[in-house]
């Protein structure tokens, strides 16, 4: 009896820091933000309870909110698949064994090491319509390049292009997954006369589905919260320019949330936005999990 008590005490002692951290820095803020979302709260004065008004206003009366959702869905539906595809292709290519494999792996992973803010500033100039390297290349090929971050139609494609450059993290996870494919399967497929493509489609990809699934979920969660790159690029050098331009084309959900919280001091409104986002992410994740039974294979 006493021994088990001591064991319990020891256990509590060791998980203690985590439990305290969870209660203080995760659970408490979450509960409070749920409460704030039902209030009018400006950070300084005590919050004032206003019921569901924040949610009603968001869903019924806020054109900016709709813009933000549209932009964010654009990234989730177009940006994320492109990023996953690029990472997957890179991983498959870098899985081939050659003399320079490690060199190229490092090379393609390198952009992920660059801090996001620095990378964003860099890409502002890479995609600069006047002096940028991309438009200069396009010009030498005889095309006139788009205005990228100055053109409401091209700002999101510009961000997607930039994101594709920095998918090294996803690529590494794909690579790890690829290493798990048993050689024996390839060998027997080769005996049956399968070429590179058939091996890829019938062996590699099915075995890789859990990894794809993992990257999809993680990617979706972070894309719903897309913030830094657009925040840096749309404000450019001017600290007085509100983020989200040109013409609201890069006003993503998290950016609008930030604006509400810290520019307009509508903390309650921002908390309501955060909870709506949480619900959307939760539901999307659950839907993906339910669909996973049909396309994710866990048996090797």
């Amino acid at each position, binding site marked *: 009896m006493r021994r088990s008590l001591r064991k319990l005490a020891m256990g509590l002692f060791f998980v203690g820091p985590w439990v305290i951290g969870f209660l203080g820095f995760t659970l408490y803020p979450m509960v409070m933000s749920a409460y704030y979302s039902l209030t*009018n709260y400006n950070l300084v004065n005590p919050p004032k309870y206003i019921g569901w008004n924040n949610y009603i206003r968001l869903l019924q009366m806020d*054109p900016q909110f709709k813009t933000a959702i549209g932009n964010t869905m654009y990234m989730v539906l177009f940006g994320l698949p492109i990023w996953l595809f690029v990472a997957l292709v890179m991983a498959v290519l870098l899985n081939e064994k050659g003399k320079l494999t490690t060199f190229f792996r490092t090379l393609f992973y390198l952009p992920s090491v660059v801090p996001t803010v620095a990378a964003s500033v860099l890409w502002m100039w890479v995609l600069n319509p006047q002096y940028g390297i991309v438009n200069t290349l396009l010009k030498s090929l005889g095309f006139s390049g788009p205005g990228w971050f*100055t*053109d409401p139609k091209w700002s999101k494609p510009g961000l997607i292009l930039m994101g594709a450059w920095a998918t090294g993290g996803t690529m590494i996870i794909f690579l790890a997954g690829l290493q798990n494919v048993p050689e024996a399967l390839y060998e027997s497929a080769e005996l049956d006369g399968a070429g590179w493509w058939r091996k890829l489609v019938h062996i590699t990809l099915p075995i890789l589905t859990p990894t794809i699934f993992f990257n999809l979920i993680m990617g979706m969660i972070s894309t719903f919260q897309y913030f830094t790159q657009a925040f840096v690029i749309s404000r450019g*050098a001017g600290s007085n320019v509100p983020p989200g331009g*040109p*013409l609201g084309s890069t006003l993503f959900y998290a950016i609008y949330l930030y604006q509400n919280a810290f*520019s307009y*001091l509508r903390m309650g409104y921002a908390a309501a936005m955060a909870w709506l986002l949480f619900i959307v992410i939760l539901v999307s994740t659950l839907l993906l999990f339910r669909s996973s039974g049909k396309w994710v294979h866990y048996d090797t």
Partner: protein
Amino acid sequence: MKRTVLAFLLVLLVSALAYAEPVTIEYWTGWGGEELEDIQKYVIDEFMKENPDIIVQTSTIFGSYDKLLTAIAAGTPPDVVSAVWETQIPGLAERGALMNLDEFAAKSELYDPDDFYPANYRQSLYKGSLYGIPATTNTSFIVYNKDLFREVGLDPENPPRTLDELVHAADLLTKRDENGKIVRLGYDAAGSGLWVWGHVFGGKFFDEENDVFTINSPENIKALTWMVDYVNRYGGMQVVQEFISGLGNYWSPQNPLFAGQVAMAGFGEWIVQFNERYGPIDYGIMAFPAPEGGVQNFTTVGGSMFCIPTGAKHPEAAWRFIEYITGPKGVEQMARTLTNMPPRRSVAEKLVHDLPVINFGLHALESPKAASGGPLTPIDQFFLDTLGQYVDQALYGQLSPEEALNQAQQMVQFEYEMAAF
């Protein structure tokens, strides 16, 4: 024996009171870099020399102004803050983040409301009470490059006075390469914003008497229409934005005015410092040209306000610092250090010979039409952002100027009523 000890302790106590430790006050400033070094040296250190019982600990929050509010909410604000724009006073005061300075001011010998320009004084108040005092202010005008004027055959001593002359000059000064791409823009009128042009056209954005926004007033619609037409002369907003995105950092020798990429640019008194650092160029100053029936010599009036946040630990010492730095001596020193417009008349008149750039402000600031950098309402930031978005929609041709301003009006007025101050 006991008595001696007691007496000794008493002596200790009394001497401790007499030689009280100096009070350390924390001061958060929005200035940074070289400017702050100069302010520290010429103003703050001076204050500490004259007031040995106060130590000012300066830290800059340049670029992260959100910090102030979080610090106030957390109950750990500084004693003095000057990283507050004039337009933020109502919002902060309304939310109870700033201390009411009325009582301090009433007792002060240095604070004199009549010496401040009316526009500056208006900005100090919210609902009739004093919440912040400016130590510097700035006006706005157009700076033009005289060499470029000569190059295209314009008279550099006779800058545009009407809108037609402005457009004419801008056309002459705009240069394109062989592909028709803009390589030099005469003047980026849209960049000065509807807040400026609306006022120049005689419009108002907020009606204080009726406590209602007037964003879609006929004058403002006319101003926005003019801006849209102007931008379209150069191929539309898209083309102009592409040109602007290639311009260098504002705070560098690549500043478009100094790099010769624009010939005229909206500016403030900091042109003097910029010219020392990034120039020199031969420049002139002109007021925003106004249409008939508009406001001649219009200027916006900005300024960093010195405030005491709610919950400051040493309000008395904080006030003495504010009183000094916004007093005649501090204001003069600040104006000299930053080459800024002093918000006090007596100082401006005294300095105009040393700093010719304040000549413009000397007259413009007396005008009752001089306007703050935004509406003096608690939703200034929401207003400015929302207005910017709808003005953009008009400039990009997605909405007519009238439609854009109608929608902006509806959004802002709604927020104003919802926030219910």
